[in-house]
């Protein structure tokens, strides 16, 4: 087991390195000169000023030198300096990361738990109106674009009904502490997390339902029935455990997508996370920040995949014991 995790970690380091290099080259292949953007903002775009800017940020160096400098820094978590925000990128990310982790983490757990429960419920009533209702609802969530759901949720629950705050991370100027602060954040979290989670919940529901129905036709379920076990026990202990295997695989893959979805959600709900940082950075051609966000989100996806692998190994003895 330890060996297995170590092996995966070694692989992950190499993949992360490849991601760094690839992103760096990709950004530099894109048209546009950051020095020109900065100079434009400063309102003084003569050649001398541009050359000074390029020299100051190392943009006049050959590409491989820039890459080497970047990689050296990245290993020490020095991700460069944002000339737009006048702050180190690592600090910008460190400020925003907790909010994003909170949002994506809650959305992920919510979508997985609710998706699996809904899937189990639907499969247990296969063909009934309950199954049809759950499946139709899931299809609706799946088919509706995320940004639209976000805008509508904000409009209905925040503007019309005034049940929940529609934007931000905490009530501005309230200065809550302790439990009150946690409750305040939680209230702000409800809309963005639900919005972000709905799409994924629909996927997990469909997957769980299909997988449960498939497993329930297998021979060992008949064995369990022949033992005289109650339906609920068979559902939980025999069918669900086996049916979860493909759902876990899918969840691991989707974890990366939740990060992608976070960009939209954070923008609509003004959630101060990495997604919004990224959105702003793209608008401002803030290359160092974009690269930093890529790097961190790449690392997050790898981490999620590693967690998936470990969970899989725990759940499925066939992998654990032959591995």
């Amino acid at each position: 087991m330890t060996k297995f995790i170590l092996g995966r970690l070694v692989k992950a380091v190499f993949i992360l390195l490849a991601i760094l290099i690839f992103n760096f080259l990709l950004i530099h292949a894109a048209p546009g000169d950051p020095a020109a953007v900065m100079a434009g903002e400063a309102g003084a775009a003569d050649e001398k000023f541009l050359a000074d800017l390029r020299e100051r940020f190392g943009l006049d160096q050959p590409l491989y030198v820039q890459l080497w400098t970047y990689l050296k820094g990245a290993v020490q978590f020095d991700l460069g300096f944002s000339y737009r925000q006048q702050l180190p990128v690592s600090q910008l990310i460190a400020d925003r990361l907790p909010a994003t982790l909170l949002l994506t983490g809650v959305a992920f757990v919510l979508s997985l738990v609710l998706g699996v429960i809904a899937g189990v419920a639907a499969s247990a009533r296969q063909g009934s109106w309950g199954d049809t209702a759950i499946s139709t609802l899931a299809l609706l969530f799946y088919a509706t674009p995320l940004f639209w759901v976000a805008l509508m949720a904000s409009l209905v629950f925040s503007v019309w009904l005034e049940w929940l705050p529609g934007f931000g991370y905490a009530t501005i100027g309230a200065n809550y502490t302790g439990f009150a602060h946690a409750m305040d954040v939680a209230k702000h979290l409800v809309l963005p997390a639900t919005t972000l989670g709905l799409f994924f919940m629909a996927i997990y529901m469909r997957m769980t339902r299909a997988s449960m129905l498939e497993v329930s036709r297998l021979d060992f379920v008949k064995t369990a029935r022949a033992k005289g076990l109650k339906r609920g026990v068979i559902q939980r202990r025999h069918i669900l455990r086996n049916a979860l295997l493909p759902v876990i695989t899918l969840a691991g893959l989707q974890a990366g997508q939740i990060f992608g979805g976070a960009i939209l959600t954070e923008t609509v709900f003004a959630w101060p996370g990495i997604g919004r940082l990224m959105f702003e950075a793209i608008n401002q051609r803030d290359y160092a920040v974009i690269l930093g966000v890529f790097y961190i989100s790449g690392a997050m996806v790898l981490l999620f995949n590693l967690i998936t692998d470990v969970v899989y190994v725990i759940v499925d003895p066939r992998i654990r014991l032959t591995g």
Partner: protein
Amino acid sequence: MSLLSIRDLAIALPKGADRPYAAHDISFDLTPGEILCIVGESGSGKSMSANAVMGLLPQGVRPVGGTITFDGQDVLRLSEKQLLDLRGRRISMIFQEPLSALNPLMRVGAQIAEVFEAHGRLTPPERRARALTLLEEVGIPDPQAAIQAYPFQLSGGQRQRVMIAMALALEPDILIADEPTTALDVTTQAQILKLIEDLRQARGMAVIFITHDFGVVADIADRVIVMQTGEIVESGTADEVLLRPQHPYTRALIDAIPRLTGQEDTPAAQSDPVLSVEGLNKTFRTGSGSFFGKPRVVKAVQDVSFDLFPGETIGIVGESGSGKSTVGRCLARLVNPDSGRVIVEGADIAHLSGAELRARRRRLQMIFQDPFSSLNPRARVSRILTEGPIAYGAPRTEAMTRARELLGMVGLDASAMQRFPHEFSGGQRQRIGIARALALDPSIIIADEAVSALDVSIQAQVLDLLADLSTRLSLSMLFITHDLRVAARICDRIIVMQKGAIVETGPTAKVLHNPDTAYAQSLLDAIPGQEYERALAGAG
């Protein structure tokens, strides 16, 4: 006093099935301690009838008439709660596929303990202790280790023993065994049959044993019921049904059993061999799955050499894992041998590649075991039969004409051309598989368990077809099988394999009646129904 009494049972199939009833007019009695065999081919309704006793019919299939009286109450009228109490405690069941019948994610001990839990018996430590005794009782080597094991860590025979341990846990009055030995090797089958027989005697338990194998029936049955398309066509004591069958269907089934008395006339090997195998080796290395672990090494084929002469049929027999299928796959170059020579018509194809391999390979064609998965479900028969010849440059119209001829040759109508594989029965599909192999004008056919998935009457027809084709087209055949009866029926010579190596080679009659090695003898001894066969021969 009968323990179980079934009267006029009718089980309806869902609308749109090929017939209205899975079984009807089913009536029989079971007395304590008796072994009742229900025999029939696939689709005869034998499993459905038995499943109805436990209230475990598949979705959409339901009993519509009759009574199943057990212990004074009609099972068909019991509530789900009453049925739960019955299942596993009074009546229990074992199935055909011992791998898929166990939950892959649960330890064996926990799965046995679950039976006690389901009926609220014993405390958890007591359940565990009982599971251990049960595993001992069913003869699992090292029960302490087995109780901690997951199903995939046990062999097929051991898994079936676990299933039996589970079924016996609460000392039921009736054990329903649905083809429990069909998926097992002949030696393992003999052990499991003996175990069931011993347990029946020790506990006075009644057994309903469902099978398609008359050899098994002859060895264990007290009474026999023969079913055909949902009806009981004959029933009686084992001797009555097996030795003096009244119904033509029963007689046909019994006649279709391949006899062990092999052919005596072995064609003398005059000419040069059409296939020469010299020193064939194949070792499989599977990754250990972890980054640093040691790979697992299986020597599947070790130094195998033999000659196949024109018009000859050689049987390669052995238990699962003996390497017999790997030999066939190496010859067809579906897997690449590590070393050794495979000489087909003068050329060593073991190490050819590219165009040369393609040109030579058509002379050597395979027929596979599973007629369901070996034909492309999305391709019409016309495409299945012409794809090969067209790939080798035959004009389309010529290939189509040839395909129609081939269908006639394997006993199918030319109208089959436009149909898809799922529209055919298992036996018909295997005929299409044979036609597909013949389409490339091979000189050698490798048949890998080609009739193992078929019912005995269909099996006999396909074997006759193969024998007939090999004479008419002077084909040479390698017949890979685990079934010595099938080998006896069709082969001139037999090669016995064990753990990747050839242990014995000789003419069929010699190997089957006077083998040189103890291993071949043990395979022979394990074949069910031998006494019965002698009795039949004596009577006939």
